[in-house]
Structure formats: C-alpha cells, structure tokens
C-alpha cells in the first residue's frame, strides 16, 4: 500500500481557524518527516537504481553547467569590481585575491550555486513529479510493479545531493577566474601570483565546510522539489503551485541553513 497516502490523507477539521492552521502546520511537518524517513529507508533498500541516479546526475549536474558557469563568472567579476574601491581607499588593493577567495569559497559559491539550483533543478523536480502525479503516471508506475518513490524520488534527491558539492567547487573555480580576469585587467597581477595569494587565505576547513553546506543544500533542494511534486493535487494549477513552492521553500531553507552552518563553523574555527 502507498505509505504516504496515509499521511497526506490526514486533514485536520476546519472548526476553528487558528487551531486549524496550527494543526495543518504540524500535520505538514509530520508529513515531511515521514517523507524524509521514507527516503532514507528506501535509499538503502534494493534495487539501488544506479542507472537512474547516473541519468539524474547528468540531468541536474551536467545540464546545469552553462547557467552555473555564467553565474559564477559574473559573480567573481562583480564582487571584485565592488570590493576594489573600498580596499583601494586604504591602499590595500593587493588584498583583493585573498578577500575574493575567502568570500567566494566560504559563502558566495555555495549560496549562489544553491540558489541557482533551487530555481532550475528544484522547480523542475516539483513540476515534473507534480505533472506525473496529476496525470496518474505515478499510479501507473505503482500498478506496473515499480516502486515510484524509489525510482523517482530517491534517485533525484540522491543525484542533486551528490552533484551540488561538485557544482559548488566548479562555481568557486569559475568565480575565481572571473575575478582574476578583472584584477589582471586593472592591476596586471599574474595568474600565479593571484592564485598563490588566493589559495593561501583558504583553509581546509573552508573547503570542507563548503562541501558540507553543498550536501545539505542539495538534499534540501531535492527533498523540497520532490515532496511538493509528489504531493501535487488539483491538476495544472497544482503543478504550478508545486513548482513554485519547491523554489520558495528550498530558497528559504537554504538561507536558514546557511545561518546555522556559519555559526557552527565559526565556533569550530
């Protein structure tokens, strides 16, 4: 039997508006908890769906490269341009590579990549699964002896969780190149000097924390997108709502998680 149909069927009675909203909030929270619990349960159960995971990695990773490249490159250039006047005022333009590398690796690369992925991949997951749900394709999979949760949800969440760290490192590199080109144009700094200075300022903890953040953001984007899509109702309107909610919820959660992780990393540092 479908496990989470039990959860989505729970609708609190609409007797009193406030208690109804509170009930709805906690019912929703319980439904998310069940959904995530089911993900971890099915993640480690057979069959492992490696082929579909690789297909999804291609979809969410490789196909996001053009957008991520452009965004990372522009972020590097813009941040360098914006930072230069402030540093130049104190005669500290030579600190630009250090400042840029710290900003990009610690914060900008994970955040920008996650927000782009939330918009592109999260909305896509919400819309695709939502559309499959309302056109009974998920039911069709279920009655044909396939586990749709495993095939559609587990593979997508796993793929984005694995691919986001790689995309974050890639964005970091592209951002640094953008920054270098801008610095080279203005200060004639050599490639080696720029990267020597930039890399000296970055610690192992910075890179580890970025990868860890990317894992968390990736899971959040996948879970939000798949949850919204998998529970879509009310036809095309519901599909639009699922895609929209997937983006809004994952972006909101990414900022909350960023705040928490920064606090934790600063404590460790």
């Amino acid at each position: 039997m479908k496990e989470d149909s039990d959860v989505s069927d729970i609708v609190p009675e609409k007797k009193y508006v406030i208690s109804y909203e509170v009930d709805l909030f906690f019912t929703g929270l319980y439904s998310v908890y069940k959904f995530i619990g089911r993900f971890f349960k099915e993640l480690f159960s057979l069959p492992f769906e490696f082929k579909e995971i690789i297909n999804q990695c291609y979809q969410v990773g490789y196909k996001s490269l053009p957008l991520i490249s452009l965004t990372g490159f522009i972020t590097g250039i813009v941040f360098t341009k914006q930072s230069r006047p402030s540093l130049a005022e104190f005669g500290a333009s030579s600190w630009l590579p250090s400042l840029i590398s710290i900003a990009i690796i610690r914060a900008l690369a994970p955040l920008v990549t996650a927000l782009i992925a939330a918009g592109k991949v999260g909305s896509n997951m919400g819309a695709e699964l939502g559309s499959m749900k309302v056109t009974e394709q998920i039911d069709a999979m279920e009655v044909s002896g396939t586990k749709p949760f495993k095939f559609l949800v587990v593979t997508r969440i796993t793929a984005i969780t694995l691919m986001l760290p790689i995309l974050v490192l890639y964005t970091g590199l592209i951002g640094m190149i953008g920054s270098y080109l801008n610095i080279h144009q203005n200060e004639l700094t050599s490639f080696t000097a720029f990267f020597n200075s930039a890399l000296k300022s970055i610690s192992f903890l910075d890179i580890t924390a970025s990868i860890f953040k990317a894992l968390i953001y990736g899971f959040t984007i996948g879970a939000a997108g798949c949850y919204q899509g998998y529970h879509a109702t009310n036809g095309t309107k519901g599909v639009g709502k699922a895609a929209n909610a997937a983006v809004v919820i994952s972006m909101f959660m990414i900022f909350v998680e960023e705040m928490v992780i920064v606090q934790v990393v600063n404590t460790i540092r």
Partner: protein
Amino acid sequence: MDTRAINIESGETVISIRGLKKAFDNNIVLRGIDIDMLKGENIAVLGRSGSGKSVLIKIISGLLKQDSGTVKVLGQEVEELTEEALRELRLKIGFSFQSSALYDSMNVKENLAFPLVRNKLSLTQKEINIAVESVLHDVGLSQTIQQMPSELSGGQRKRIGIARTLIMKPEIMLYDEPTSGLDPMTCIEINNLIIKVQQQYNASAIIITHDLTCAKNTANKVTMIIDGKFLVPGSFEEIFNAKNTNTSSFYDYNFINSK
C-alpha cells in the same frame, strides 16, 4: 474475431468483494459493495460521475485503501499483503487509466518496455524488443513504436496504455473509462480490443464506463453503482429491461444500436 464478449458460465473466482465501504472525509462513496468475478469474465460497471467507480478499481489494485470490507484478488486479500506481495500481485493486474497515463518523457517503445525492464530482469534486450513489437501488433499500432506520447491521438494513447498492461500478460484487466472522449469509430476499435484481450489473453476485466455500447458489447455482465451500492449484476438486457429509473435514464441518454 467475435465482436461480443465470450460468455462465462462458471469457473474460478478471481475477484471477490464483500461489504466494501469507502469515504473521503464526510463524502461516503461506497456503502457496501459485494461482487464475485469469474475467470475470463468481463463485468461493466456503470454509474454517475463521482459515484465511486474509479475508486473501486483503485481499491482492487491497492492504490487506495478501503475503510471496511474485504477485497480478494486471485485468492489474496489485498489489504493484508506486504509491499512485496502486493507488487507481485499487481504484475497479474493490468490497469488501463482514463488518461492513459503514458510516461511523457519516454517514447512508445520505452513506455511498453518499462514494465518488463523493471520486473523481468532475466530478459535480454532482444526478447524485450520482440515482446514490444508483438504487443504493438496486437493493438494495431506497430508504426508508432518510435513516437512520443504527445504525438499520438487520444485513441492511440488509449491503445498504447492497454498495450503497456498487456505486455505483462495480466490475468485481470481494469479499464477506467476506456472509450471516454473518443469518436464512435475509435470507440468501436477500443471495444474490439477489449474483447480481443478477453479472448486472446483469457483475462477477466472490470470495465468502468458511461458508454452503454461499450458495456453491451464488451461485458458478460453489467452492474451499476447507485447510492454507493451495486445493482445485482446481470446481462445487459436483464439490467435495462428491468424498470428502474436510474438505469432507464442512463439508457435513454445513450442511443443504443443493438448491432
């Protein structure tokens, strides 16, 4: 090919439903359904929109849970099955959805191969290709093998949807509104296909429909859901010759050509 359903007098019971009840919030849809279906038998279920016809077959296939009552399919009580046992049982049930529910991102060949690829791991690619071509031939759509679902007409989508279930050689077919939204000529093609499935695959079927021509031509028995309960199933003539306001209004609306 005979254009009427084969008459089944006796045999093994493949579906047995007793006291089936289902409600959504305060809306009680099924109020106690009882029915037995024999092997090879086609039963048409009529009823108004929202009367619970689709809910009934979703409960039979385990997509929905009943509130009370028992549903035995091929001797197994659906509600009590483990996830794996239910998966095994579903391989013996073909479900043709009202919307066809073809996978948008796959072409016809991939749609048809999907259940085999997922469930018959020992099959080679060549064997899968042969099975796909054979079932496409059965539904008369061999030329569509490389087409995407969006390139198919409504009738073609329905037939591909049926073909996708036939590829697993089901013992029971559940048709949800197989002729809805189709032109009369395509309806005849679908009706003939339903009979062909009964004859060629010896599959029993529940046919949910509003189309009396479909019910008359494809089913051995006809029943109707009225106020959440079944009329006693009988032949088309028995049901519609009886003076019942519900069945007569249904009959009057549909122009029936007895041929």
